[in-house]
Protein backbone atom coordinates (compact mmCIF):
# COMPACT_ATOMS: atom_id res chain seq x y z
CA UNK A 1 0.00 0.00 0.00
CA UNK A 2 2.74 2.36 1.01
CA UNK A 3 4.52 1.55 -2.19
CA UNK A 4 1.37 2.29 -4.18
CA UNK A 5 0.93 5.70 -2.58
CA UNK A 6 4.57 6.42 -3.15
CA UNK A 7 4.44 5.51 -6.82
CA UNK A 8 1.23 7.49 -7.33
CA UNK A 9 2.89 10.46 -5.70
CA UNK A 10 5.98 9.97 -7.86
CA UNK A 11 3.81 9.78 -10.96
CA UNK A 12 1.92 12.94 -10.02
CA UNK A 13 5.21 14.67 -9.34
CA UNK A 14 6.76 13.64 -12.63
CA UNK A 15 3.60 14.62 -14.52
CA UNK A 16 3.79 17.99 -12.83
CA UNK A 17 7.44 18.29 -13.85
CA UNK A 18 6.71 17.34 -17.42
CA UNK A 19 4.09 20.03 -17.88
CA UNK A 20 6.37 22.62 -16.31
CA UNK A 21 9.17 21.83 -18.76
CA UNK A 22 10.41 24.74 -20.79
CA UNK A 23 10.87 24.19 -24.49
CA UNK A 24 14.11 25.80 -25.56
CA UNK A 25 13.97 27.22 -29.07
CA UNK A 26 17.36 27.35 -30.79
CA UNK A 27 17.93 29.95 -33.50
CA UNK A 28 20.81 31.71 -35.20
CA UNK A 29 19.79 35.35 -34.80
CA UNK A 30 21.58 36.52 -37.93
CA UNK A 31 19.16 35.89 -40.79
CA UNK A 32 16.60 38.67 -41.17
CA UNK A 33 13.67 38.61 -41.73
CA UNK A 34 13.58 35.00 -40.43
CA UNK A 35 15.44 35.64 -37.22
CA UNK A 36 17.67 38.44 -36.03
CA UNK A 37 18.65 40.31 -32.89
CA UNK A 38 16.70 43.56 -32.66
CA UNK A 39 17.88 46.90 -31.28
CA UNK A 40 16.86 45.85 -27.79
CA UNK A 41 19.14 42.82 -28.03
CA UNK A 42 16.33 40.27 -28.23
CA UNK A 43 15.54 37.61 -30.82
CA UNK A 44 13.04 39.04 -33.30
CA UNK A 45 11.70 38.29 -36.77
CA UNK A 46 9.25 36.05 -38.57
CA UNK A 47 10.32 32.98 -36.65
CA UNK A 48 10.15 34.73 -33.28
CA UNK A 49 6.54 35.73 -33.90
CA UNK A 50 5.71 32.34 -35.38
CA UNK A 51 7.44 30.41 -32.61
CA UNK A 52 5.71 32.38 -29.86
CA UNK A 53 2.35 31.78 -31.52
CA UNK A 54 3.05 28.06 -31.97
CA UNK A 55 4.07 27.75 -28.31
CA UNK A 56 0.88 29.54 -27.25
CA UNK A 57 -1.24 27.19 -29.36
CA UNK A 58 0.58 24.10 -28.14
CA UNK A 59 0.41 25.45 -24.57
CA UNK A 60 4.15 25.26 -24.06
CA UNK A 61 6.47 27.61 -22.20
CA UNK A 62 9.21 28.58 -24.58
CA UNK A 63 12.58 30.21 -24.19
CA UNK A 64 14.77 31.58 -26.99
CA UNK A 65 18.41 30.64 -27.34
CA UNK A 66 20.93 31.71 -29.99
CA UNK A 67 23.57 29.35 -31.27
CA UNK A 68 26.23 29.40 -33.96
CA UNK A 69 24.92 27.97 -37.25
CA UNK A 70 27.80 25.50 -37.62
CA UNK A 71 27.08 23.71 -34.35
CA UNK A 72 23.31 24.16 -34.36
CA UNK A 73 22.48 20.48 -35.14
CA UNK A 74 25.06 18.85 -32.80
CA UNK A 75 23.77 20.97 -29.92
CA UNK A 76 20.18 19.96 -30.66
CA UNK A 77 20.84 16.21 -30.68
CA UNK A 78 22.93 16.60 -27.55
CA UNK A 79 19.95 18.18 -25.82
CA UNK A 80 21.18 21.73 -25.20
CA UNK A 81 17.91 23.00 -26.66
CA UNK A 82 14.81 21.28 -27.95
CA UNK A 83 14.02 22.75 -31.35
CA UNK A 84 15.80 24.46 -34.23
CA UNK A 85 13.76 27.30 -35.67
CA UNK A 86 16.33 29.06 -37.80
CA UNK A 87 15.18 29.22 -41.41
CA UNK A 88 16.39 25.66 -41.85
CA UNK A 89 15.22 24.06 -45.10
CA UNK A 90 14.00 20.49 -44.92
CA UNK A 91 16.49 18.31 -46.78
CA UNK A 92 17.03 14.54 -46.92
CA UNK A 93 20.56 14.92 -45.59
CA UNK A 94 19.42 16.74 -42.45
CA UNK A 95 16.42 14.47 -42.09
CA UNK A 96 18.77 11.56 -41.49
CA UNK A 97 20.12 13.24 -38.35
CA UNK A 98 17.11 15.11 -36.99
CA UNK A 99 13.35 15.20 -37.59
CA UNK A 100 11.42 18.08 -39.10
CA UNK A 101 7.92 19.27 -38.40
CA UNK A 102 5.78 19.98 -41.44
CA UNK A 103 7.01 23.03 -43.31
CA UNK A 104 5.86 26.46 -42.14
CA UNK A 105 6.96 28.23 -45.32
CA UNK A 106 6.27 26.83 -48.79
CA UNK A 107 9.34 25.65 -50.75
CA UNK A 108 10.83 29.08 -51.39
CA UNK A 109 13.09 30.22 -54.15
CA UNK A 110 16.74 30.94 -53.71
CA UNK A 111 18.31 33.60 -55.89
CA UNK A 112 21.67 34.87 -57.06
CA UNK A 113 22.67 38.45 -56.31
CA UNK A 114 25.63 40.23 -57.88
CA UNK A 115 26.94 43.73 -58.44
CA UNK A 116 25.12 43.80 -61.80
CA UNK A 117 22.37 41.74 -63.42
CA UNK A 118 24.89 40.05 -65.75
CA UNK A 119 27.26 38.86 -63.01
CA UNK A 120 28.91 35.49 -63.63
CA UNK A 121 27.11 32.85 -61.55
CA UNK A 122 29.51 30.16 -62.77
CA UNK A 123 32.51 32.06 -61.42
CA UNK A 124 33.08 32.53 -57.68
CA UNK A 125 29.84 32.25 -55.72
CA UNK A 126 29.48 32.95 -52.01
CA UNK A 127 27.10 31.00 -49.75
CA UNK A 128 26.71 30.34 -46.05
CA UNK A 129 28.45 27.13 -44.97
CA UNK A 130 26.33 24.01 -44.47
CA UNK A 131 23.28 25.35 -46.31
CA UNK A 132 21.32 23.97 -49.27
CA UNK A 133 22.62 26.94 -51.27
CA UNK A 134 26.23 25.94 -50.60
CA UNK A 135 25.44 22.40 -51.73
CA UNK A 136 23.79 23.74 -54.87
CA UNK A 137 26.74 25.98 -55.78
CA UNK A 138 29.08 23.01 -55.40
CA UNK A 139 26.89 21.03 -57.81
CA UNK A 140 26.79 23.74 -60.48
CA UNK A 141 30.56 23.63 -60.83
CA UNK A 142 31.07 27.25 -59.78
CA UNK A 143 33.81 27.99 -57.25
CA UNK A 144 32.16 27.94 -53.84
CA UNK A 145 33.21 30.50 -51.26
CA UNK A 146 31.76 29.62 -47.86
CA UNK A 147 31.19 31.97 -44.93
CA UNK A 148 29.97 31.24 -41.40
CA UNK A 149 27.29 33.97 -41.39
CA UNK A 150 24.84 35.18 -44.07
CA UNK A 151 25.95 38.77 -43.68
CA UNK A 152 29.51 37.93 -44.67
CA UNK A 153 28.33 36.38 -47.95
CA UNK A 154 26.79 39.73 -48.95
CA UNK A 155 29.90 41.62 -47.87
CA UNK A 156 31.99 39.31 -50.08
CA UNK A 157 29.98 40.37 -53.15
CA UNK A 158 30.17 44.04 -52.21
CA UNK A 159 33.95 44.00 -51.92
CA UNK A 160 34.44 41.95 -55.07
CA UNK A 161 35.69 38.80 -53.38
CA UNK A 162 32.84 36.84 -54.97
CA UNK A 163 31.00 37.39 -58.26
CA UNK A 164 27.62 36.51 -56.79
CA UNK A 165 25.91 35.19 -53.67
CA UNK A 166 23.29 32.45 -53.55
CA UNK A 167 20.81 32.67 -50.64
CA UNK A 168 17.14 32.48 -49.80
CA UNK A 169 15.33 35.11 -51.85
CA UNK A 170 13.38 36.33 -48.83
CA UNK A 171 16.64 37.20 -47.13
CA UNK A 172 18.02 38.97 -50.19
CA UNK A 173 15.00 41.11 -51.18
CA UNK A 174 15.32 43.77 -48.44
CA UNK A 175 19.08 43.94 -48.98
CA UNK A 176 18.80 44.48 -52.73
CA UNK A 177 15.98 47.00 -52.29
CA UNK A 178 18.01 49.15 -49.94
CA UNK A 179 21.31 48.92 -51.78
CA UNK A 180 20.50 51.95 -54.01
CA UNK A 181 21.13 49.94 -57.15
CA UNK A 182 24.51 48.62 -56.01
CA UNK A 183 23.24 45.04 -55.94
CA UNK A 184 20.98 43.26 -58.42
CA UNK A 185 19.34 39.87 -58.83
CA UNK A 186 21.06 37.70 -61.41
CA UNK A 187 19.15 35.32 -63.69
CA UNK A 188 16.24 33.14 -62.73
CA UNK A 189 15.27 32.10 -59.22
CA UNK A 190 16.48 28.66 -58.15
CA UNK A 191 13.93 26.41 -56.42
CA UNK A 192 15.72 24.56 -53.60
CA UNK A 193 14.68 22.42 -50.63
CA UNK A 194 11.30 21.35 -49.34
CA UNK A 195 10.34 24.48 -47.45
CA UNK A 196 11.41 25.47 -43.97
CA UNK A 197 10.46 23.42 -40.94
CA UNK A 198 11.32 23.23 -37.26
CA UNK A 199 14.02 20.73 -36.39
CA UNK A 200 13.49 18.42 -33.41
CA UNK A 201 15.32 15.36 -32.10
CA UNK A 202 14.25 12.09 -33.72
CA UNK A 203 13.41 10.70 -30.30
CA UNK A 204 11.16 13.65 -29.49
CA UNK A 205 8.04 12.49 -31.31
CA UNK A 206 5.70 14.05 -28.76
CA UNK A 207 7.08 17.55 -29.21
CA UNK A 208 7.10 17.14 -32.98
CA UNK A 209 3.41 16.12 -32.83
CA UNK A 210 2.50 19.18 -30.79
CA UNK A 211 4.24 21.59 -33.14
CA UNK A 212 2.86 19.78 -36.21
CA UNK A 213 -0.65 20.25 -34.87
CA UNK A 214 -0.02 23.90 -34.04
CA UNK A 215 1.42 24.61 -37.50
CA UNK A 216 -1.55 22.83 -39.10
CA UNK A 217 -4.00 24.93 -37.10
CA UNK A 218 -2.20 28.11 -38.20
CA UNK A 219 -2.31 26.95 -41.81
CA UNK A 220 -6.02 26.15 -41.51
CA UNK A 221 -7.16 29.48 -40.09
CA UNK A 222 -4.96 31.56 -42.38
CA UNK A 223 -2.87 33.21 -39.64
CA UNK A 224 0.32 31.65 -41.04
CA UNK A 225 -0.26 33.17 -44.48
CA UNK A 226 -0.93 36.57 -42.90
CA UNK A 227 2.30 36.29 -40.92
CA UNK A 228 4.31 35.33 -44.01
CA UNK A 229 2.88 38.35 -45.88
CA UNK A 230 3.67 40.64 -42.97
CA UNK A 231 7.36 39.68 -42.88
CA UNK A 232 8.14 38.79 -46.50
CA UNK A 233 5.88 41.18 -48.42
CA UNK A 234 2.78 40.66 -50.52
CA UNK A 235 4.58 38.81 -53.31
CA UNK A 236 5.79 36.07 -50.98
CA UNK A 237 4.65 32.52 -51.64
CA UNK A 238 1.90 31.37 -49.28
CA UNK A 239 0.09 28.10 -48.66
Amino acid sequence: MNKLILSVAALALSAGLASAQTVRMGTEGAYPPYNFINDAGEVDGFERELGDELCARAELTCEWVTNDWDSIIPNLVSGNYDTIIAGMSITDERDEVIDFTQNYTPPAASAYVGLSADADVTGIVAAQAATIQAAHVAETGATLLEFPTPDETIAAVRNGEADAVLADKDFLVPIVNESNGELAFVGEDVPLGGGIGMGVRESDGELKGKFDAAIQSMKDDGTLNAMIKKWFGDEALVF
Partner: protein
Amino acid sequence: MFSYCTDPGTLEGLTWLSCYLTTGKHQSIYWAVGTVLLLLAITAPTALLFGFGGASAARSRFAPLSWFGKIYISVVRGVPDIAFFLFFVIALDQAFEWVRHKVKCPDWDQEVWQGNDFVVCAEAKLPLGNAAQWVHETYGFFLAVLTFAIVFGAFAANVLYGAMQAVPRAQIETAEAYGMSNRQAFWRILVPQMWVYALPGLSNLWMVLIKATPLLFLLGVEDIVYWARELGGSKTAQFTDYPHPDWRMWYFAALLIFYLGFTRVSEIVLDKIMRRLTKGQATMAGEAQRKAAA
Protein backbone atom coordinates in the same frame (compact mmCIF):
# COMPACT_ATOMS: atom_id res chain seq x y z
CA MET B 1 18.42 54.97 -23.16
CA PHE B 2 18.21 58.76 -23.45
CA SER B 3 14.85 60.51 -23.71
CA TYR B 4 15.61 62.00 -27.14
CA CYS B 5 16.17 58.54 -28.64
CA THR B 6 12.51 57.78 -29.34
CA ASP B 7 12.78 58.63 -33.04
CA PRO B 8 16.34 57.93 -34.18
CA GLY B 9 15.48 58.58 -37.84
CA THR B 10 15.41 62.32 -37.19
CA LEU B 11 18.68 62.50 -35.28
CA GLU B 12 22.10 63.28 -36.66
CA GLY B 13 25.74 63.34 -35.69
CA LEU B 14 26.73 62.82 -32.09
CA THR B 15 23.19 62.61 -30.71
CA TRP B 16 22.46 59.82 -33.18
CA LEU B 17 25.70 58.11 -32.19
CA SER B 18 24.93 58.40 -28.49
CA CYS B 19 21.58 56.72 -29.08
CA TYR B 20 23.08 54.11 -31.38
CA LEU B 21 25.82 53.14 -28.94
CA THR B 22 23.38 52.70 -26.04
CA THR B 23 20.81 50.39 -27.64
CA GLY B 24 20.00 47.19 -25.82
CA LYS B 25 22.01 45.36 -28.43
CA HIS B 26 25.10 47.45 -27.75
CA GLN B 27 24.76 46.86 -24.03
CA SER B 28 25.24 43.20 -24.87
CA ILE B 29 28.72 43.86 -26.25
CA TYR B 30 29.63 45.87 -23.13
CA TRP B 31 28.50 42.92 -21.03
CA ALA B 32 30.53 40.63 -23.27
CA VAL B 33 33.69 42.61 -22.44
CA GLY B 34 33.02 41.83 -18.79
CA THR B 35 32.36 38.18 -19.61
CA VAL B 36 35.67 37.87 -21.43
CA LEU B 37 37.63 39.55 -18.61
CA LEU B 38 35.93 37.37 -16.02
CA LEU B 39 36.64 34.28 -18.07
CA LEU B 40 40.32 35.17 -18.28
CA ALA B 41 40.46 35.97 -14.57
CA ILE B 42 39.06 32.56 -13.65
CA THR B 43 40.64 30.50 -16.41
CA ALA B 44 44.25 31.62 -15.98
CA PRO B 45 44.68 30.39 -12.37
CA THR B 46 42.65 27.25 -13.08
CA ALA B 47 44.77 26.41 -16.13
CA LEU B 48 47.91 27.04 -14.07
CA LEU B 49 46.61 24.62 -11.47
CA PHE B 50 45.90 22.01 -14.15
CA GLY B 51 49.37 22.64 -15.56
CA PHE B 52 51.03 22.28 -12.18
CA GLY B 53 49.14 19.05 -11.57
CA GLY B 54 50.05 17.73 -15.01
CA ALA B 55 53.71 18.62 -14.66
CA SER B 56 54.00 17.15 -11.15
CA ALA B 57 52.23 13.99 -12.34
CA ALA B 58 54.55 13.67 -15.35
CA ARG B 59 57.62 13.92 -13.07
CA SER B 60 56.23 11.40 -10.61
CA ARG B 61 58.28 8.29 -9.81
CA PHE B 62 55.04 6.31 -9.61
CA ALA B 63 54.81 5.04 -13.20
CA PRO B 64 51.00 5.09 -13.80
CA LEU B 65 50.77 8.66 -12.51
CA SER B 66 53.65 9.70 -14.70
CA TRP B 67 52.01 8.03 -17.73
CA PHE B 68 48.76 9.83 -16.95
CA GLY B 69 50.53 13.20 -16.83
CA LYS B 70 52.47 12.56 -20.02
CA ILE B 71 49.41 11.28 -21.91
CA TYR B 72 47.38 14.30 -20.80
CA ILE B 73 50.09 16.67 -21.99
CA SER B 74 50.65 15.05 -25.36
CA VAL B 75 47.05 14.23 -26.28
CA VAL B 76 45.56 17.61 -25.44
CA ARG B 77 48.45 19.47 -27.05
CA GLY B 78 48.01 17.40 -30.20
CA VAL B 79 44.26 17.88 -30.73
CA PRO B 80 43.28 21.03 -32.68
CA ASP B 81 41.56 23.58 -30.43
CA ILE B 82 38.51 23.88 -32.62
CA ALA B 83 37.92 20.12 -32.65
CA PHE B 84 38.38 20.11 -28.91
CA PHE B 85 35.84 22.88 -28.45
CA LEU B 86 33.27 21.39 -30.81
CA PHE B 87 33.33 17.79 -29.63
CA PHE B 88 34.95 17.61 -26.24
CA VAL B 89 32.57 20.07 -24.61
CA ILE B 90 29.50 18.27 -25.90
CA ALA B 91 31.02 14.99 -24.71
CA LEU B 92 31.84 16.50 -21.31
CA ASP B 93 28.32 17.85 -20.93
CA GLN B 94 26.90 14.46 -21.90
CA ALA B 95 29.21 12.69 -19.44
CA PHE B 96 27.87 14.87 -16.59
CA GLU B 97 24.29 14.24 -17.64
CA TRP B 98 24.90 10.52 -18.04
CA VAL B 99 26.24 10.23 -14.49
CA ARG B 100 23.30 12.22 -13.11
CA HIS B 101 20.94 10.09 -15.17
CA LYS B 102 22.36 6.86 -13.68
CA VAL B 103 22.00 8.25 -10.16
CA LYS B 104 18.65 10.02 -10.41
CA CYS B 105 16.66 7.80 -12.76
CA PRO B 106 17.65 4.18 -12.08
CA ASP B 107 14.33 2.81 -13.43
CA TRP B 108 14.53 4.55 -16.80
CA ASP B 109 13.73 1.89 -19.41
CA GLN B 110 14.76 3.66 -22.61
CA GLU B 111 18.14 3.82 -24.27
CA VAL B 112 20.26 6.87 -23.54
CA TRP B 113 21.62 6.77 -27.07
CA GLN B 114 18.80 6.64 -29.60
CA GLY B 115 20.49 6.88 -32.97
CA ASN B 116 22.05 10.33 -33.01
CA ASP B 117 20.08 11.51 -30.03
CA PHE B 118 21.30 11.73 -26.52
CA VAL B 119 18.28 11.36 -24.26
CA VAL B 120 18.37 11.46 -20.47
CA CYS B 121 15.47 11.86 -18.07
CA ALA B 122 14.29 15.41 -17.38
CA GLU B 123 15.67 15.38 -13.83
CA ALA B 124 19.18 14.62 -15.07
CA LYS B 125 19.38 17.53 -17.47
CA LEU B 126 22.13 20.01 -16.76
CA PRO B 127 20.92 22.63 -16.11
CA LEU B 128 17.32 21.55 -15.65
CA GLY B 129 15.20 22.17 -18.74
CA ASN B 130 13.01 24.68 -16.93
CA ALA B 131 15.89 26.64 -15.40
CA ALA B 132 16.15 30.32 -16.23
CA GLN B 133 18.25 31.40 -19.17
CA TRP B 134 20.94 32.92 -16.95
CA VAL B 135 21.46 29.52 -15.31
CA HIS B 136 22.06 28.01 -18.73
CA GLU B 137 24.45 30.81 -19.58
CA THR B 138 26.35 30.45 -16.33
CA TYR B 139 26.62 26.70 -16.85
CA GLY B 140 27.89 27.29 -20.39
CA PHE B 141 30.38 29.78 -19.02
CA PHE B 142 31.82 27.34 -16.50
CA LEU B 143 31.93 24.61 -19.10
CA ALA B 144 33.98 27.07 -21.15
CA VAL B 145 36.28 27.78 -18.19
CA LEU B 146 36.83 24.06 -17.66
CA THR B 147 37.54 23.42 -21.34
CA PHE B 148 39.95 26.34 -21.60
CA ALA B 149 41.62 25.20 -18.37
CA ILE B 150 42.12 21.66 -19.70
CA VAL B 151 43.50 22.85 -23.05
CA PHE B 152 45.75 25.57 -21.71
CA GLY B 153 46.61 23.45 -18.69
CA ALA B 154 48.27 20.92 -20.99
CA PHE B 155 50.46 23.61 -22.53
CA ALA B 156 51.20 25.07 -19.10
CA ALA B 157 52.09 21.58 -17.85
CA ASN B 158 54.69 21.24 -20.58
CA VAL B 159 56.14 24.66 -19.76
CA LEU B 160 56.27 23.88 -16.04
CA TYR B 161 57.73 20.41 -16.69
CA GLY B 162 60.53 22.05 -18.65
CA ALA B 163 61.01 24.68 -15.94
CA MET B 164 61.28 22.03 -13.24
CA GLN B 165 63.99 20.27 -15.25
CA ALA B 166 65.80 23.57 -15.75
CA VAL B 167 66.43 24.21 -12.06
CA PRO B 168 70.15 23.38 -11.60
CA ARG B 169 70.70 19.90 -10.20
CA ALA B 170 73.20 21.38 -7.71
CA GLN B 171 70.33 23.15 -5.90
CA ILE B 172 68.54 19.87 -5.27
CA GLU B 173 71.79 18.18 -4.28
CA THR B 174 72.39 20.87 -1.71
CA ALA B 175 68.88 20.39 -0.37
CA GLU B 176 69.52 16.65 -0.09
CA ALA B 177 72.82 17.34 1.66
CA TYR B 178 70.88 19.35 4.25
CA GLY B 179 68.78 16.24 4.82
CA MET B 180 65.59 17.39 3.15
CA SER B 181 63.19 14.69 1.95
CA ASN B 182 62.11 14.57 -1.71
CA ARG B 183 58.88 16.28 -0.84
CA GLN B 184 60.63 19.06 1.09
CA ALA B 185 63.19 19.59 -1.69
CA PHE B 186 60.33 19.79 -4.22
CA TRP B 187 58.26 22.35 -2.35
CA ARG B 188 61.01 24.43 -0.75
CA ILE B 189 63.72 24.42 -3.42
CA LEU B 190 62.39 23.33 -6.80
CA VAL B 191 59.01 25.08 -6.93
CA PRO B 192 60.16 28.54 -5.79
CA GLN B 193 63.05 28.46 -8.26
CA MET B 194 61.26 27.11 -11.31
CA TRP B 195 58.96 30.11 -11.90
CA VAL B 196 61.71 32.22 -13.33
CA TYR B 197 62.25 29.58 -16.03
CA ALA B 198 58.52 29.06 -16.55
CA LEU B 199 57.44 32.68 -16.84
CA PRO B 200 58.43 33.38 -20.48
CA GLY B 201 56.50 30.30 -21.61
CA LEU B 202 53.56 31.06 -19.36
CA SER B 203 53.38 34.65 -20.55
CA ASN B 204 53.16 33.36 -24.12
CA LEU B 205 50.24 31.17 -23.09
CA TRP B 206 48.51 34.10 -21.42
CA MET B 207 48.77 36.12 -24.61
CA VAL B 208 47.37 33.23 -26.66
CA LEU B 209 44.58 32.75 -24.12
CA ILE B 210 43.57 36.40 -24.37
CA LYS B 211 43.10 36.00 -28.08
CA ALA B 212 41.40 32.59 -27.93
CA THR B 213 38.14 33.91 -26.51
CA PRO B 214 36.26 33.95 -29.85
CA LEU B 215 36.16 30.16 -29.48
CA LEU B 216 33.62 30.86 -26.75
CA PHE B 217 30.81 31.24 -29.23
CA LEU B 218 31.21 27.60 -30.23
CA LEU B 219 30.06 26.92 -26.68
CA GLY B 220 27.11 29.28 -26.95
CA VAL B 221 28.77 32.04 -24.90
CA GLU B 222 28.46 35.28 -26.83
CA ASP B 223 31.83 37.01 -26.72
CA ILE B 224 33.00 40.38 -28.01
CA VAL B 225 34.08 39.15 -31.42
CA TYR B 226 30.65 37.61 -32.01
CA TRP B 227 28.95 40.89 -31.06
CA ALA B 228 31.38 42.97 -33.13
CA ARG B 229 30.55 40.87 -36.18
CA GLU B 230 26.83 40.93 -35.42
CA LEU B 231 26.65 44.67 -34.69
CA GLY B 232 28.98 45.66 -37.50
CA GLY B 233 27.22 43.73 -40.26
CA SER B 234 25.15 45.89 -42.58
CA LYS B 235 21.62 46.56 -41.36
CA THR B 236 18.60 47.35 -43.51
CA ALA B 237 16.03 49.89 -42.33
CA GLN B 238 13.28 47.28 -42.29
CA PHE B 239 14.60 45.57 -39.19
CA THR B 240 16.28 48.28 -37.16
CA ASP B 241 15.90 51.96 -36.29
CA TYR B 242 19.60 52.41 -36.93
CA PRO B 243 20.30 51.20 -40.49
CA HIS B 244 23.94 51.34 -41.56
CA PRO B 245 26.25 49.77 -44.18
CA ASP B 246 28.96 47.26 -43.37
CA TRP B 247 30.70 48.76 -40.32
CA ARG B 248 32.60 45.69 -39.23
CA MET B 249 35.86 47.48 -39.93
CA TRP B 250 35.16 50.03 -37.17
CA TYR B 251 34.03 47.40 -34.70
CA PHE B 252 37.07 45.27 -35.38
CA ALA B 253 39.28 48.35 -35.14
CA ALA B 254 37.83 48.93 -31.67
CA LEU B 255 38.56 45.30 -30.81
CA LEU B 256 42.09 45.72 -32.12
CA ILE B 257 42.65 48.64 -29.76
CA PHE B 258 41.10 46.71 -26.88
CA TYR B 259 43.29 43.66 -27.45
CA LEU B 260 46.47 45.66 -28.08
CA GLY B 261 45.86 47.70 -24.94
CA PHE B 262 45.14 44.59 -22.95
CA THR B 263 48.24 42.74 -24.13
CA ARG B 264 50.37 45.85 -23.50
CA VAL B 265 49.16 46.07 -19.91
CA SER B 266 49.82 42.33 -19.57
CA GLU B 267 53.37 42.79 -20.83
CA ILE B 268 54.07 45.53 -18.30
CA VAL B 269 52.70 43.46 -15.44
CA LEU B 270 54.56 40.33 -16.57
CA ASP B 271 57.83 42.29 -16.80
CA LYS B 272 57.33 43.44 -13.21
CA ILE B 273 56.71 39.87 -12.06
CA MET B 274 59.78 38.68 -13.96
CA ARG B 275 62.00 41.26 -12.26
CA ARG B 276 60.62 40.21 -8.91
CA LEU B 277 61.15 36.50 -9.55
CA THR B 278 64.68 37.02 -10.82
CA LYS B 279 65.78 38.46 -7.47
CA GLY B 280 68.40 36.23 -5.93
CA GLN B 281 68.20 33.56 -8.63
CA ALA B 282 71.18 31.73 -10.06
CA THR B 283 70.50 33.04 -13.56
CA MET B 284 72.22 35.64 -15.73
CA ALA B 285 69.50 38.20 -15.07
CA GLY B 286 69.73 37.49 -11.34
CA GLU B 287 73.49 37.99 -11.50
CA ALA B 288 73.01 41.27 -13.33
CA GLN B 289 70.59 42.48 -10.65
CA ARG B 290 73.11 41.62 -7.96
CA LYS B 291 75.87 43.52 -9.74
CA ALA B 292 73.67 46.57 -10.28
CA ALA B 293 72.79 46.66 -6.59
CA ALA B 294 76.39 46.31 -5.45
